[in-house]
């Protein structure tokens, strides 16, 4: 067991210095600590307690809960703000035709944003890695699905994913190993929805999920508390904190409220140290042999730009000028309607089944694919607000709440943006955080590829609603963010137009890795976390290989 060395000055040294302690950073920390390396994690945010967050949620106003305020219940470190929307704190400045579609919810905390994800553990399709060569749009990755497949398996095993053992229900079907556990059982709503729509090619499948229905390696069984977002009250859902703690048990050290802001490089442009501010704004230096920035799709490019130095005047890892460009998210729509029969949405975990029929096809040469999630978050708050707006009281009010809750449906549609260099994160010239570090600005346009995809999605949604004899079909007119932040440190084979290689190693720096969503060269339509963790595990193997080769 090996641990970082902390000097009396507060400076530190370790074999590997990781900035960020979310699912990606923590998993890498665990893997490398297990391989015998000393690992230091610098986390900008606080170490939080689940019970406090649950209590904050229950104490939060009805308005905030009905509006899905998944940020405000998480305590923030004074020096490391994250976006807040109730009211907006404007930490991230948004502009462009669809700036409002990029209102991301991410946390800066030990364990990261998997505190409030929904644990959907999707894989990209093999074709998603070859969008340019297959459909003539977007980019190809520097690696293939086959290259990443073993890491997808390891990520699923590390996170305890339940997914369908039946190949007919898998998306994609190309797998070398089974899911660690079979699918989470469908609720009545999932069964009935599948029965109605499958005859029309929509292909309902169980969402692979980072939870299990029996205890799993010290984690309790999911009890269907229907509160995955914003906080699983019982810890049944996978969260990065698990691998933080596992890494720490093997000697890794996590420093919370440690905000990285500066990077030293040597004559070979190798990274030699990262500087951070502690909670009292005292600066310290972490030296290491290998460095990993795993701060998710906004904070990693921001840090690279903030840390520009003499040798790297446009920012660290930015000789290509691609750092902060190609920003993507599954800009989405929501559709709600009242079915003519009760479905009882809201029983079981928040996400359960999803329609993947429109996930791939020749049409992708022209417009965006989509996936349609049967949102399983309880409809009661929304139904209540509607019933109250009707001015009802007594039994009529109770009946209306029951009818709208049981018959109400919310579909969440994810669309696939193409990487566009003009969708760009830059440093604000006018706003800074409490440490004086520039806040991020993001310009965003979903693009015609998505806009054309919306037309197809509308037809599908109207059709699905008609299959349920729906009333009150409402399709949102603004795009919503889905917090699947991609592209800002994009992967590619050519260092001239990309930031990292197939191992997520920076083209410009032989000992710096930037794994996570930022590396993803195509968005597909599925949640990013499993791909991010798989990329992290691949990077982790590369780091271990490189350090061992240097020592030998």
């Amino acid at each position: 067991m090996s641990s970082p060395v902390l000097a009396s000055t507060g400076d530190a040294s370790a074999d590997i210095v990781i900035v960020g302690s979310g699912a990606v950073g923590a998993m890498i920390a665990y893997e490398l600590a297990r391989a015998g390396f000393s690992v230091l994690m610098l986390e900008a945010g606080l170490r939080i307690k689940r019970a406090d967050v649950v209590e904050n949620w229950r104490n939060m106003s009805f308005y905030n809960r009905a509006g899905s305020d998944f940020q405000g219940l998480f305590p923030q470190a004074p020096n490391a703000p994250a976006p807040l929307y109730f009211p907006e704190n404007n930490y991230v400045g948004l502009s462009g035709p669809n700036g409002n579609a990029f209102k991301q919810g991410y946390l800066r905390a030990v364990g990261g944003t998997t505190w409030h994800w929904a644990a959907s553990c999707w894989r990209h399709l093999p074709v998603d890695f070859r969008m340019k060569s297959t459909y003539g749009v977007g980019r190809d990755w520097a690696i293939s699905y086959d290259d990443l497949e073993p890491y997808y398996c390891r990520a699923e095993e590390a996170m305890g994913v339940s997914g369908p053992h039946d190949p007919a229900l898998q998306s994609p079907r190309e797998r070398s190993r089974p899911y660690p556990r079979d699918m989470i059982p469908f609720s009545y709503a999932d069964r009935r929805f599948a029965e109605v729509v499958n005859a029309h090619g929509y292909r309902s499948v169980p969402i692979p999920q980072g939870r299990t229905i029996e205890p799993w390696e010290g984690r309790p069984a999911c009890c269907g508390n229907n509160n995955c977002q914003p906080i699983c009250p019982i810890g049944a859902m996978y969260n990065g904190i698990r691998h933080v703690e596992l890494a720490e048990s093997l000697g890794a050290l996590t420093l919370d409220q440690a905000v990285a802001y500066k990077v030293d490089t040597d004559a070979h442009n190798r990274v030699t140290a990262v500087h951070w501010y502690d909670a009292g704004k005292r600066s310290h230096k972490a030296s290491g042999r290998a460095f990993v920035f795993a701060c998710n799709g906004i904070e990693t490019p921001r840090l690279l730009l903030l840390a520009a130095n003499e040798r790297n005047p446009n920012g660290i890892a930015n000789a290509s000028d691609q750092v902060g460009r190609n920003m993507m998210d599954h800009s989405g729509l929501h559709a709600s309607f009242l079915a003519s029969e009760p479905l009882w949405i809201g029983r079981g975990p928040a996400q359960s089944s999803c329609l993947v029929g429109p996930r791939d096809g020749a049409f992708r040469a022209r417009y965006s694919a989509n996936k349609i999630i049967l949102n399983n978050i309880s409809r009661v708050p929304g139904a209540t607000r509607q019933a109250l707006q009707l001015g009802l009281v007594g039994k009529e009010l109770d009946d209306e709440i029951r009818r709208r809750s049981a018959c109400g449906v919310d579909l969440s549609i994810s669309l696939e943006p193409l990487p566009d260099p003009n969708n760009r994160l830059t440093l604000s010239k006018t706003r800074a955080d409490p440490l004086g570090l520039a806040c991020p600005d993001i310009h965003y346009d979903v693009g015609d590829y998505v806009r054309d995809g919306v037309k197809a999605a509308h037809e599908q949604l109207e059709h699905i609603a008609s299959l349920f004899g729906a009333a009150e079909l409402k399709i949102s007119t603004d795009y919503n963010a889905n917090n699947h932040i991609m592209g800002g440190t994009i992967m590619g084979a050519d260092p001239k137009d990309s930031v990292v290689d197939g191992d997520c190693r920076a083209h410009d720096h032989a000992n710096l890795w930037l794994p996570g969503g930022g590396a993803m060269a195509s968005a597909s339509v599925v949640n990013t976390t499993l791909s991010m963790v798989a990329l992290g595990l691949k990077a982790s193997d590369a780091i271990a290989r490189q350090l061992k080769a240097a020592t030998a």
Partner: protein
Amino acid sequence: MKWLIGAVLRQISHWILPAPVQARVVKLQRQEKTEEMRMRSAQQFVDVSSSVPSAIGPAPTRRGVLIGGAALVGYFFIGNSAYAVQDALSVASDESAFLRLSIALTGHRDLDGKLAQRLFSLLREAHLLFAGKMEKLAVLAESGGEPHAILARADEAGFKQIALSIVAAWYTGSAADAMNAPMAAYRDALMYWPTRDGLPAPTYCFNRPGWWAEDPPPLGIPATAPGAVEPPAPPPTGVLSTPKPAQTEPRG
């Protein structure tokens, strides 16, 4: 030392103060957390090109809230005790009137008295001259009838909005459908009652592994409501949205 005095005062207050007043003191303490969250979320990164650090103002401290609480307790000891007792009695009387009115307006006989105290207190803060309007409503409710009949009488007398505000408070657990409004109840909010045979309030569960795979209960009412007026769309679930709140009577 302040802590010690506070603790002693609180203990004494338990022996001497009437229950409704005690509940208020407890509520003040409970509200600290909500207050802190509200203040924190008010931090703004205002676009100010002149200054570099963000414009984060000083947040009120826990201590400030605690001192306020202690001052309230102190008032009942140091202040004019005759007024204090009269006030407390009047509050207790209003609260029990509020509970009776709430039962009449919601049609639910088993409303919780403690929750009634909290909601009454929040409604008084949220609505101008609430106690007076409530008294008039209570008179209208005395002649009995189903909630919709009472509401119709309230409408004729110009008190429909305040009646609906009381109902909404019981169903949402709050006096206002507004950003960061203080809460009186989570699981006990009436909105969860009509579906409690099929849906646990989120964060709770039915405590049987895989219970959600079982068939749900029968709906028991018609699935469609012909001729119903269509309300505004519900907020999309699971994604950030800041919907317009339901109509509430403006304050002041």
